[in-house]
C-alpha cells in the first residue's frame, strides 16, 4: 500500500512503494503486450489532465493509461482555458475539485507547483513534470525498463548524460535509483550540472570515459537549443563533440548495457543515430513502460485513498 495519496516526486518515496508500483506495472505491461486493453479497475473514476506545458508523449501516455483502466479523462490545455485569462492555480484546482475529479494529472513549468495544487485539492495529484524539479512517472518507467532487463535495480550502474541542470528526469531518476540501491553517474558541461547533486548521491564525472566505463545503463537527456542560446555552451556541435555519446563511447559500457532516453531525442547531439537505433537501445520499450507505470500509479493511489 502506498503511503501517499499524491505522487508529487520520488524524493520521499520508499523502496517498498517503488517496488510495489514496478511490480504492478510489470503485470500491466505484460497484459498489454498480450493484447489486453480493457482493464476496468478504475471504471467510473475521472481524471483531469492539466498541462501548462506542451507535451505529446507524457500527456497521451497518461491518457492511454487512464483509458486502459476504464477511466473518464478530460484534457485541459492551459493555454486555451481560463488559466490564459489569469486564473490562479489555486482557483483552477478548486474548480476541478468542485467537479469531483478523482485525479488531477498536472504538468507545470514551475518547480513545486504540484505541491501547491495537492495542498489545495481533495483529488489525488500526479506530477507529470514540474519545472526543473521532478518527473516521477518518467523515472519509474525508466526503472521498470531497467529492472525488466537486468532483473533488479540493486547495484546497477547508471550513467546520465545531457542537460542535468534543467532536467526533472535526471533528478527523479537520481532519487529513485539511489533508493533502489543503484549507482548514478552524471556527466555534462559544468554549466548544466546543478549544485549539490553530489551531496544527493550522484557521482559527477569529469570525462565521458569515467561516466560510461562499465555501466549497465546509458541514459541520454535532451539538449535543447534554447540552452545553447542562453549561453550554457557554445554550439550544439561542440556539445556533441565533447559530451555526446557515439557507438565508440557506448563500447565503454558493459557489453549488455542498454540505452535509454526520455525523448524527444536530438539525433546527433546527446546521442548519435547509431546509438539511438542500436540493438541495445530500449527507447521504444520505455514508451510502453510509461503507460504501464502510470496505470500502476493510478491504481495504487486510488487504493491508498480508500
Amino acid at each position: 500500500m502506498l503511503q501517499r495519496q499524491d505522487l508529487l516526486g520520488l524524493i520521499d518515496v520508499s523502496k517498498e512503494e517503488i517496488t510495489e508500483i514496478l511490480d504492478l506495472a510489470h503485470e500491466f505491461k505484460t497484459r498489454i503486450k498480450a493484447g489486453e486493453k480493457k482493464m476496468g479497475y478504475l471504471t467510473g473514476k475521472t481524471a483531469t489532465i492539466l498541462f501548462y506545458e506542451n507535451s505529446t508523449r507524457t500527456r497521451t501516455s497518461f491518457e492511454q493509461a487512464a483509458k486502459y483502466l476504464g477511466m473518464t479523462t478530460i484534457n485541459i490545455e492551459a493555454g486555451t482555458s481560463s488559466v490564459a485569462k489569469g486564473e490562479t492555480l489555486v482557483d483552477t484546482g478548486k474548480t476541478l475539485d468542485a467537479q469531483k475529479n478523482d485525479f488531477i494529472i498536472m504538468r507545470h513549468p514551475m518547480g513545486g507547483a504540484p505541491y501547491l495544487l495537492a495542498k489545495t485539492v481533495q483529488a489525488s495529484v500526479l506530477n507529470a513534470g514540474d519545472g526543473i524539479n521532478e518527473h516521477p512517472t518518467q523515472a519509474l518507467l525508466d526503472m521498470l525498463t531497467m529492472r525488466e532487463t537486468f532483473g533488479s535495480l540493486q547495484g546497477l550502474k547508471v550513467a546520465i548524460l545531457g542537460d542535468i541542470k534543467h532536467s526533472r528526469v535526471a533528478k527523479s531518476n537520481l532519487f529513485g535509483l539511489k533508493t533502489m540501491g543503484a549507482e548514478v553517474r552524471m556527466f555534462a558541461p559544468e554549466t548544466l550540472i546543478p549544485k549539490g547533486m553530489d551531496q544527493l548521491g550522484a557521482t559527477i564525472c569529469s570525462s565521458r570515459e569515467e561516466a560510461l566505463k562499465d555501466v549497465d545503463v546509458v541514459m541520454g537527456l535532451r539538449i535543447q537549443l534554447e540552452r545553447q542560446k542562453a549561453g550554457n555552451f557554445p554550439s550544439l556541435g561542440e556539445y556533441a563533440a565533447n559530451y555526446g555519446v557515439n557507438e565508440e563511447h557506448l563500447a565503454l559500457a558493459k557489453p549488455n548495457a542498454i540505452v535509454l532516453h526520455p525523448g524527444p531525442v536530438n539525433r546527433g547531439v546527446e546521442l548519435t543515430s547509431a546509438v539511438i537505433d542500436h540493438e541495445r537501445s530500449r527507447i521504444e520499450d520505455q514508451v510502453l513502460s510509461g503507460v504501464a507505470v502510470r496505470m500502476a500509479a493510478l491504481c495504487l493511489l486510488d487504493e491508498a485513498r480508500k
Partner: protein
Amino acid sequence: MIIRNGQVVLKDSVVKKDIRIENGKIATIADYIAPDGSEELDVQGKHIFPGLIDMHVHLREPGFEKKEDIESGSKAAVKGGFTQVCCMPNTNPVTDNKVVVTYIKARAKEVNLCKVHPIGAITKGLQGEEMAGIAGMKKAGAVAISDDGVAVKNARLMRLAMEYAKGFNIICLCHCEDKDLVDGGSVHEGLSATIAGLKGIPRAAEDVIIAREISLAETLDTPVHICHVSTYSGVRMIRDAKRAGIKVTAETCPHYYMATDEIIRTYDTNTKVNPPIREEIDKQAILEGLKDGTIDCIVTDHAPHHADDKNVEYNLAAFGISGIETSFGFAITYLYKAGVLTLPEIAEKMSYNPAKILGLEGGEIKEGGVADLTIADLEERWVVDPQKFVSKGKNSPFSGYELQGVVDYTIVDGEIKYKA
C-alpha cells in the same frame, strides 16, 4: 512622567535607574527620582532600550494599501518596539519627488504613532536611467536615497548619484543585486534549491554589486550603506573595506542571522525573500559580522504582502517577509540569549547606529535626549502567530517559533504609543 526601576540599556552598560521625562525629553536619569506629581510607571524587572529604529521597511503607501499602509505599518512598528522607521520608495507613485515625501510625512503625522522617515529614490521611477530630485526630497524630509528592490544597473549613474548626494549630505542605501546573475532565480543557489527544483540565485549576484558600491565609495570618498547583507563573502568584503578605511556601513535582517535555506524545501512562499535566505556558512558569517562590528545595523526589510501575492506557485510569489513584529524577539532570542550580542550591542545595532548613519535623533538613552524608549520583558516567552500580526502582511515563514522578549511599552517623544 517617571519610569521607575527599569534596567536601562545604556551605551556600555545596563543599570537599574529611574528616568524622568519632561516635554518629550529625557530630563533625568538617576538611581532614585523623587515623585513630582506626574504619572509614574513602575517597570521593575523590565529593560528599557533606546527607542528602536528600523531603517529599512516597506509601508506600501501610497499605491499598495492592500499590502500595508502607513497606519497599519505604524501600528505594527510600535508593537514591535520601533519608535522610528524609514520607509523605502518603491511605492506607487514611486517616492522619487518631494510631493510623495511630503505626503508620507503628512500621513505619518496624522497617524501619530512612530516617526516615519521617507527614503527617496535614487533614480526617477526606480528605472535606473535619470537621477531623481534628490535635493528636493532631502528638503522635504527624506533621510536617505535608495532604489531598494533593484540595484542601479548603470555604474556611471550610480557614481554620479552618490557624488551628487554627497553635496546634500544624504547617503545612498544600496540594494545589491545583479539581475543578470539572478537570471530569474527565486531562492539561494545550493543544495536546497536543487532538492526543491527551484532556480537558484548565486552569492555572486549580491557580491558583485557590493564590491562595486564599495569601490565607488572609495573612489568618491563618500559614505555608502549596504542593505540586507546575506552572504558570507559580502560580510568579508565589507570587513576588508572597513579595515581599509572606506566609509562603508551595512545592515542585515533577522532571517539572515537565524534561518538557513533548508526552510524553502516545503515550498512555503513566505520563505521567498530577496536576497534569499542562504546557507549555514552565511548565517555564521552574519553572526560573526554582527559580533565584530562589520555589520552595523539590524533592520527588518519589513515587506508586507497580501495573501494573494503569496498563495501562488513559488516562482510567481512576491519576495518579502513581514518582519517588524518579530525582529525584537529574534534579537533577544537568537542574539542576546544565545550569547552573540550584549544588550548594549543590540541597542547599538537596532537604534544607535541607524540614528548615527542617517542623522536621526535618538539612538541612546541620555539626559537631554529625546524620550523615545522601548520597554520590554526579556524573559517572557511567546509563539509567533502571523495571523495575529497587526500588520496587514501576515507573510512570515516563522509561524510557531517560540521567542523570548516581549515589548511592553513603546514611548515616542515621551508619549506611550503602544502598551501590551
